[in-house]
């Protein structure tokens, strides 16, 4: 494209953004002639350039806009109609510019209406100006026409009072309680005025040139580091002095080049006033946007990345947080809401806060939503503080908006913001006070190109951990106050009275399968890392020093490894990977499943990837560990042994208005005094209390079940849980199956028919079978769909429970086949999954599934099956 045109486009784009912003400001403060002059100058420049390059359409538009602004400059009343018209013109100009950039020439089109409107407004303003000294009962036709077009009834000609009223300094917005706001407005204005009046001499430089310069400086920094490394080893005084100088100059050069990449954050804000203005009109709210610290500088690259999240958050504030004027008045707040945007430097990073004085987050609604979405259980939520609960808004797909508006509320929002901020190594946090407002605080690094990092050693390799994530370094020693301890195999560190989860870097970096021998002596260096509110420690073998490193992006072939955010070359020429604490945190969350993914490779054939199950681990006498899926447990109780009632060989407990048999698990001895821990298991109307020696832990993990020998009673098999062999309790053994009279009364009179269970995990199959059997059903449990089709060919099936996690396509195909074979007979097909997505639901419905259940939701499962049974009886 023509170089001249290219230049014109960049410049005009910038100018128009400024006009956008200034106009909104001007509308609020029509007395500020400085702003007006600036706008006029900018529009005039654009017009001039258009004429010069030969863009008639743009020239005509800008000319018309200029004539209206010119009238304002001469003292005409500023009204929102005129401002809207000018803003509309600017939008049109932008459209044309966009097309111009694409095709290299002005698009065809007709702007006569808009231009006519603008001229009419200018005429009107001119008329008003003429008559201002006398009575202003002037010709209002153009405005009337404009109003009519915008669907508003033209009021009677503006009276004297009206004109006077309007030209007064923003009385509608009122000065009540806004003194502070005006002050900050004035302050930013002052800060901006020098740059506006001429400003320092600037030079437009191609971004590529700067990028290249940056790369070269990065190389220089590396070379300097290399030289320093060499000098450290050699005692050569002659080398020292010049090297010192080189080092200094390099640092200065680096600073200088970094500065050229810096841009004031105000650039990312420039669109916001306009957006807020349009939104307030659209939503019928009155919103004021205050900005502070627009001159705070940020790396260009980062600026680009946070631009959209910022816009999104301001939209959110306007749409959800700020109430309608009437509601605000009721709450005793001023009619207009305020969104306050502030940015400032803070220790090598930039903090941006977006605060509103709206209604605040609805914690209860977030709580409900979190439960509904399965992000947490009620019990888990109870333990969380309000601040922790508010952080759920950053979860993907989480939106508390009742209505989806055009503006926001589609559930893509805060999660995207968080992802964006995460990706540049920043953090987001939210603080909210009901009724008073919400503040979102974003912390981002100044630049991505050169960071200071801590060099650590894990095994034989060095790694870099970005300093921004490092809170402190702790040396852990056995017997010391800071020592590493283990809870069932999971290392933790006692740090100032708190427990910190520890991740072993050598362990993480070890090749799959080879579990690094964990340091049994409880010694090592711990890099305490903070991601958002989560703190965890990274255990490393040793720590070197902090070094300025030049971040180079990971090769595209390795970018999928979230553990690393990039790589760099150290002073000695070694390539070193930069650890991404976010990735580590994410990996740790999923570490359990990852580990089991790796293990099976060694013992390939018979084991399979286990599903994650939450297990209750308890001791059952003689140090024997047993476990039971938590989903099968109703409650955990501690009962005074005196409350037990003995009748014959049985021990009973009066529990919740019922007599419940107490059964000791394995070698557990029932206590005759003191507190007896009990695991209450109920199944429909049947409840038993399992007496255990002690409750040990609740573990979420995936397990490989080794089947028990035939002779062993009371256990299904055993599994490694947190590195310890643990027996899995066979619930069927403890449920009084052999005493039908005991519980038959509460059970449905007839079994609801044969059930086909297809579940590839041995573990789950074995857990589900007793549950189903205990409720009196005939069950065929199979591992895969090919075996299942054989089984299904035989006897008729009433219900089918199909696993959807392993191979959903096969499950869908099988379900379709079942439906066909059933030929309209009653058949209930239920999908079992650990992760129900809307997509899965949809596909399942298409394949003929009646419903999808969470794999461990036993209650739902039984009630669904009972529903099937009832259906059947009704049908019969």
């Amino acid at each position, binding site marked *: 494209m023509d170089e001249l045109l290219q230049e014109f486009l960049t410049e005009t784009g910038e100018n128009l953004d400024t006009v956008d912003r200034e106009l909104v400001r001007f509308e609020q403060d029509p007395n500020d002639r400085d702003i007006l002059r600036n706008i006029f100058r900018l529009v005039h420049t654009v017009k001039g350039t258009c004429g010069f390059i030969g863009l008639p359409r743009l020239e005509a538009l800008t000319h018309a806009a200029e004539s209206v602004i010119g009238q304002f400059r001469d003292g005409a009343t500023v009204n929102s109609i005129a401002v809207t018209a000018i803003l509309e013109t600017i939008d049109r100009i932008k459209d044309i510019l966009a097309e111009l950039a694409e095709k290299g020439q002005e698009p065809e089109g007709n702007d006569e209406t808009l231009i006519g409107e603008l001229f009419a407004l200018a005429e009107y303003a001119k008329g008003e100006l003429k008559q201002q000294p006398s009575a202003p009962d002037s010709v209002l036709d153009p405005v009337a026409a404009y109003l009519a077009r915008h669907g508003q009834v033209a009021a009677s000609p503006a009276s004297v009072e009206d004109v006077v009223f309007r030209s007064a300094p923003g009385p509608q917005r009122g000065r009540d309680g806004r003194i502070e706001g005006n002050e900050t407005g004035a302050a930013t204005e002052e800060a901006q005025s020098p740059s506006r009046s001429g400003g320092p001499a600037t030079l437009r430089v191609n971004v590529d040139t700067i990028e290249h310069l940056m*790369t070269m400086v990065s*190389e220089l920094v590396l070379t300097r580091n290399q030289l320093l490394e060499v000098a450290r080893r050699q005692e050569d005084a002659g080398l020292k002095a010049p090297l010192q100088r080189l080092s200094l100059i390099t640092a200065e050069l680096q600073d200088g080049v970094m500065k050229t990449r810096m841009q004031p954050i105000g650039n990312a804000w420039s669109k916001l006033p306009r957006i807020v203005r349009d939104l307030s009109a659209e939503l019928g709210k009155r919103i004021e946007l205050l900005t502070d610290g627009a001159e705070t500088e940020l790396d260009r690259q980062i600026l680009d990345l946070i631009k959209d999240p910022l816009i999104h958050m301001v939209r959110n504030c306007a749409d959800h947080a700020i109430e309608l004027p009437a509601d605000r008045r009721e709450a005793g707040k001023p009619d207009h809401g305020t969104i306050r945007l502030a940015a400032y430097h803070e220790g090598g990073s930039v903090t941006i806060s977006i605060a509103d004085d709206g209604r605040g987050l609805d914690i209860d609604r977030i709580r409900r939503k979190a439960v509904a979405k399965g992000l947490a259980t009620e019990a888990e939520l109870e333990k969380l503080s309000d601040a922790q609960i508010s952080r759920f808004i950053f979860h993907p797909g989480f939106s508390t908006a009742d209505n989806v508006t055009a503006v926001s509320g589609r559930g893509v929002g805060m999660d995207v913001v968080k992802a964006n901020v995460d990706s540049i190594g920043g953090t987001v946090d939210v603080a909210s006070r009901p009724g008073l407002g919400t503040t979102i605080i974003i912390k981002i690094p100044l630049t991505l190109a050169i960071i200071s990092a801590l060099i650590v050693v894990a095994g034989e390799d060095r790694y870099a951990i970005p300093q921004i994530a490092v809170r402190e370094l702790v040396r852990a020693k056995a017997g010391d106050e800071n020592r590493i301890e283990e809870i069932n195999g999971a290392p933790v560190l006692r740090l100032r009275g708190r427990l910190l989860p520890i991740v072993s870097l050598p362990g993480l*970096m070890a090749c799959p399968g080879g579990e690094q021998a964990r340091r049994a002596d409880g010694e090592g260096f711990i890099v305490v890392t903070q991601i958002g509110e989560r703190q965890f420690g990274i255990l490393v073998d040793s720590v070197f020093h902090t070094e300025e490193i030049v971040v180079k992006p990971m*090769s595209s072939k*390795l970018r999928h490894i979230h553990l*690393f955010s990039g790589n760099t*070359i150290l002073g000695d*020429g*070694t390539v070193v990977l930069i650890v991404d604490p976010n990735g580590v945190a994410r990996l740790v969350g999923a570490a359990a499943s990852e580990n089991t993914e790796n293990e099976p490779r060694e013992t390939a054939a018979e084991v399979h990837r286990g599903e994650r199950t939450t297990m209750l681990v308890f001791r059952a006498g003689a140090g024997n560990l047993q476990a039971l899926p938590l989903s099968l447990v109703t409650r955990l109780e501690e009962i005074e042994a005196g409350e037990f009632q003995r009748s014959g060989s049985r021990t009973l407990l009066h529990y919740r208005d019922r007599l419940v048999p107490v059964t000791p698990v394995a070698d557990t001895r029932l206590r005759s005094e003191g507190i007896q821990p009990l695991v209450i298991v109920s199944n429909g109307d049947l409840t038993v209390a399992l007496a255990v020696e002690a409750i040990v832990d609740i573990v979420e993990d995936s397990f490989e079940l080794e089947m028990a020998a035939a002779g062993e009673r009371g256990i299904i098999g055993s599994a490694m849980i947190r590195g310890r062999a643990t027996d899995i309790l066979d619930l069927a053994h403890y449920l009084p199956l052999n005493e039908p009279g005991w519980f038959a009364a509460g059970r449905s009179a007839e079994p609801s028919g044969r059930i086909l269970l297809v579940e590839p995990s041995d573990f789950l199959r074995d857990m589900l079978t007793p549950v189903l059997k205990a409720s009196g059903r005939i069950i065929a449990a199979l591992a895969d769909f090919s075996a299942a089709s054989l089984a299904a060919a035989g006897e008729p099936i009433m219900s089918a429970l199909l696993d959807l996690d392993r191979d959903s396509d096969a499950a869908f195909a099988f379900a379709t086949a079942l439906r066909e074979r059933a030929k309209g007979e009653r058949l209930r097909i239920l999908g079992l999954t650990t992760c129900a997505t809307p997509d899965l639901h949809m596909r399942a419905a298409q394949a003929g599934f009646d419903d999808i259940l969470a794999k461990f939701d036993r209650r739902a499962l039984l009630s669904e099956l009972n529903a099937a049974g009832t259906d059947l009886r009704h049908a019969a």
Partner: protein
Amino acid sequence: MSSSASPPPVPTAPGFGDSLDYVTIRVGEQLLGLPIGRVQDVFIANRITIVPRAPDEIVGLLNLRGRIVTAICLRKRLGRPVTLKLDGQGRPELTAIGIDHDGEAYALIVDAVGEVIRLDRSTFEPLPVHLDRVWAALATGIHRLADELLVVLDLDAVLDLDLRSAA
């Protein structure tokens, strides 16, 4: 940086005229040819940074004159077992071919590098139909030499690790 700064000397389009230029390499006994236009460097590396959790084919990261290069093992790519050559101090000695692909620098680790040869187009033949599928996906054709055969590799396919599914 320097490797990208100095472009290969001669006009590089393979198939220019009637002759084709190749850098010859060996993996095991097999002679392979890389179009010379794509080869930036040939170098020996003995310090490599292993990347945990990386795909099997990726040996690690190398520092080639200040540039970070992703090293891909050609042996592994061709479905051959990997043998490590060690130098005198017990460090791995890697013979690497520097290649640029999609603006990123890669190093292909090979067993040995031979000379650059110029071959006549008339000796070029398509791949035999019964060639191993992995090889077929990575090669473009074969040259008949006097005493052996030279398999011409398709570097884009070799570097496209997603093609592994063909294996």
